[in-house]
């Protein structure tokens, strides 16, 4: 045993503090959520990422030399994060959020690489993307980048505070909040004039508006509300479910209070929509509303209460909820059909769950109760239909009615 050299405690050149900083920044970037397949080894990739164009599979970012990023230099890694170009010179698809990661500093990116280098290498080959031609040819991304990609490290706004700038750096960069919370155009590029105004995540989840709107945004939330939500998964106004629950579980619960506060300060400074931009002008038929209310009273009041206010920090309020009143009703329909679960965090270890109602309520009933929830207690949301519910049912449940 004296003859074998002990393996280095961490990769050469990296210090303990840069590795720990990298671990923290990898949490901020929520790398683990996408780069881990269900039931698979962390960071070994293979998770299917559905896009409107086809399915892309996340890659192995453990330091395995054959299938992971073991052979990648710091520069290779920075090029991927900053410019969306992988080690072999080919383009990455923006399902990997390099349009946001580009603004991370080289130093931060190096720290993330130093952390990833400490992971146990997992030999697991990457799966090719399942995209139709011409998207299957990665060269087309060069044209997409020319049109929509703005390479460049974050530049502080000197008119704003350091706290605001730290929040902006995290939200616009590693946090890549806009990847879900910003509407996209037909080619999947974020609409730059509607940053963080809410976006279609896909899979029938709608990521709500993070702007200052009272109804649909964070206008009614204090910075403390935002910090508590990101730290623990819920606050007195709402609770996370679906993909956001995963973000809280794998990412934001690990951020420092100072960073969460910075994010909150930045988000609270986002403007509200101009009045009149409300697209939900159609109202729901009063008979359907009455039917929806009856279903609500029978099935939902036990937790969400008759007045829709829920129980603070336990059962989310539906009244005045931005998620409930979002532009698309998909999240509400999704949760009614398939249920939802708040993340178990160290601050709130209980993972509260809502049961699935797909086996109990038919498409008409789901549509009625969703329309009721989106338009009761002062809420306002565009009406949905049994047909829309039926489509979502097929996608998110076993399809049994």
């Amino acid at each position: 045993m004296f003859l074998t050299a002990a393996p280095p405690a961490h990769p050469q050149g990296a210090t303990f503090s840069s590795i720990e900083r990298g671990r923290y920044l990898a949490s901020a970037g929520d790398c683990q959520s996408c780069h881990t397949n269900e039931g698979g080894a962390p960071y070994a990739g293979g998770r299917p990422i559905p896009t409107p164009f086809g399915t892309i599979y996340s890659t192995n970012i453990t330091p395995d030399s054959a299938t992971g990023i073991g052979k990648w230099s710091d520069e290779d890694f920075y090029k991927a994060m900053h410019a969306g170009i992988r080690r072999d010179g080919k383009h990455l698809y923006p399902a990997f959020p390099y349009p946001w990661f580009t603004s991370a500093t080289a130093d931060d990116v190096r720290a993330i690489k130093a952390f990833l280098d400490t992971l146990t290498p997992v030999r697991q080959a990457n799966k090719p993307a399942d995209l139709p031609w011409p998207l299957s040819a990665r060269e087309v991304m060069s044209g997409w980048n020319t049109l929509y990609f703005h390479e460049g490290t974050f530049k502080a706004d000197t008119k704003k505070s350091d706290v605001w700038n730290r929040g902006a750096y995290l939200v616009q960069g590693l946090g890549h909040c806009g990847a879900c919370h910003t509407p996209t155009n037909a080619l999947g590029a974020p609409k730059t004039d509607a940053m963080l105004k809410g976006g279609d995540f896909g899979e029938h989840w709608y990521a709500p508006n993070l702007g200052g709107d009272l109804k649909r945004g964070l206008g009614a939330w204090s910075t403390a509300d935002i910090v508590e939500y990101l730290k623990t998964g819920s606050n007195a106004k709402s609770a996370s479910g679906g993909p956001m629950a995963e973000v809280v579980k794998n990412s934001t619960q690990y951020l420092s209070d100072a960073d969460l506060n910075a994010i909150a300060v930045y988000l609270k400074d986002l403007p509200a929509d101009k009045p009149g931009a409300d697209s939900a002008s159609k109202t729901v038929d009063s008979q359907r509303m009455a039917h929806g209310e009856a279903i609500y009273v029978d099935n939902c009041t036990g937790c969400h209460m008759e007045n829709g206010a829920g129980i603070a920090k336990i059962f989310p309020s539906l009244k005045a909820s931005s998620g409930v009143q979002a532009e698309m009703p998909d999240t509400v329909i999704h949760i009614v059909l398939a249920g939802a679960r708040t993340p178990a965090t160290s601050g709130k270890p209980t993972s509260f769950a809502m049961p699935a109602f797909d086996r109990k309520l038919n498409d008409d009933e789901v549509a009625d109760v969703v329309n009721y929830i989106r338009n009761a207690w002062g809420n306002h949301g565009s009406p949905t239909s049994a047909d829309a519910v039926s489509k979502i049912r097929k996608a998110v449940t076993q399809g049994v009615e």
Partner: protein
Amino acid sequence: MATRLKPVDVVLVGFGWTGSILAQELTDAGLQVLAIERGKFRDTVPDFATTHIQDELKYAVRNALFEEPARETLTFRNSSAETALPMRHLGSFNPASGVGGAGVHWNGQNWRFLPSDFVQRSHIEERYGKKFIPEDMTIQDWGVTYNELEPYYDKWEYMCGISGEAGNIRGKLQSGGNPFEGARARGYPLPPLKRSYATAIFDKAAREAGFKPFPCAAANTSQPYKNPYGVQMGQCTYCGYCEWFACGNYSKSSPQTTILPVLLKKDNFAYRTLCDVTRVNKDSSGKRATGVTYVDVQGREFEQPAELVILCAFAQHNVHLLLLSGIGAPYDPKTNGGVVGRNYAYQITSSVDVFLNENVNPFMGAGALGQAIDEFNGDNFDHAPHKFIGGGYIALWTTGGRPILQQHGLPDGTPKWGSDWKKARHENYLRSASIATHGSVMSYRDSYLDLDPTYRDVYGNPLLRLTFDFHDNEHKMSKFLTDKAALIGKAMKPRSIKVNYREGHYSILPYETTHNTGGAAMGTDPKTSVVNRYLQCWDMPNVFVMGASVFPQNAGYNPTGTVGALTFWAADAIRNRYMKNPGQLIHT
């Protein structure tokens, strides 16, 4: 041939309340803990999903959450002169199967025993003389006092988020609470549940009759709650589906709603479900346990070595396993020698149906929404003129108004069927309530558990045999309590009342309470107890026994609060005494 598994520090037989508390406490102490459970894993969602759990046919009638007699049962007889027969249906009590144990389907009626309950024999002898205790009554002191247990009652109540009104804080009586309770260090973590109208009528009547009624303490949350582990609970919705049901709203205390969210995340904890433990294994000296043998759902046999074996199953099952494993001398009623199986006890209940003039909406209830008086419990009154020992509380519970099994009785003279029955039901559903008495049962030489000589289970092991009947002492006491309940019933100014005394032999069929106790009694003398005051086996110091099986006799209260307190007390002894110096903690 059993497959030998990797050793662990602690193996827990059963993963209900006591197993969950011990797992949480002992993993905190750094031990590697494994719980083995015969039933399935269950959680609020999807297993107890609200709007699905309120299914009386599935749960109350078809017993979906209970032990299945087809898989495990016991034989029963009233006296040793009879031949015991195996029970194909259980009725008088309903043990659970599955993670969370009966903590999933209980009402949440939470009590502390009286200080005098823990020194039952010495207290009675001191106050009434030795002769006051009948010769065949085998009651004894617990070996632990109320004051010693008080901090652990407190721990249990704050873990559960109990809703209630304190009656005695540090010796100072509190208005509105139970003036007879032992002194507590502080009040309950949550205020009492909202009162039902029927409990308000009871309260007024009891006051007029000269008693001091109080809201019963409930493991149903009156408000949202976060316990010291950080685990959160919702707020009770008064849906009326607690007893025999699980809670779909995170508002009844159970292992799932108070411990498992933190316990299941620990690296040094694991559990295995659908596994029947068949033996506690011993080393060649016979003085030390080496682990347990269990059979999984595929019939494969495993040997799980462990440094410490803790029995956390339902009361009778702990005793069954001790008997099958040959730990401690089996009790012999002929010689009054031996200890395992000795001092089995139960409870004696009765009721007074009250037919009121007012609508009281029974369907809006909670498992522990009740108003009680405690004047006639334990030794809260002078027993000398009555010539019996024990007592019980008298309470009006509004637990729900389910359509199939939860209908109160109908006035005397009502036909059992037909249009007049329907009419009476219609007239009385909203306008009736029932006052319950919840009486103690002492232990006796002829009430015990042993191995059945005839009937065997699926593994070829003898079934447990229960020999039990009510004694004169209990009948006298129950009649006394029922008459007091009728007094309050009349003071409620009803149209009529119907008094249902508990008479005759004990029957194992109609439901009474799942409050079976004893068989592995605790005490100060190894000749009359299986475990010492720390719930450690006298004969095998690395085996501990939890739960109501250690009660030397039964008190006039629901036992779960005391089971919880004893578990925290034992956990403390294991952490702070046994782990420092493994071995027998008490030397006689």
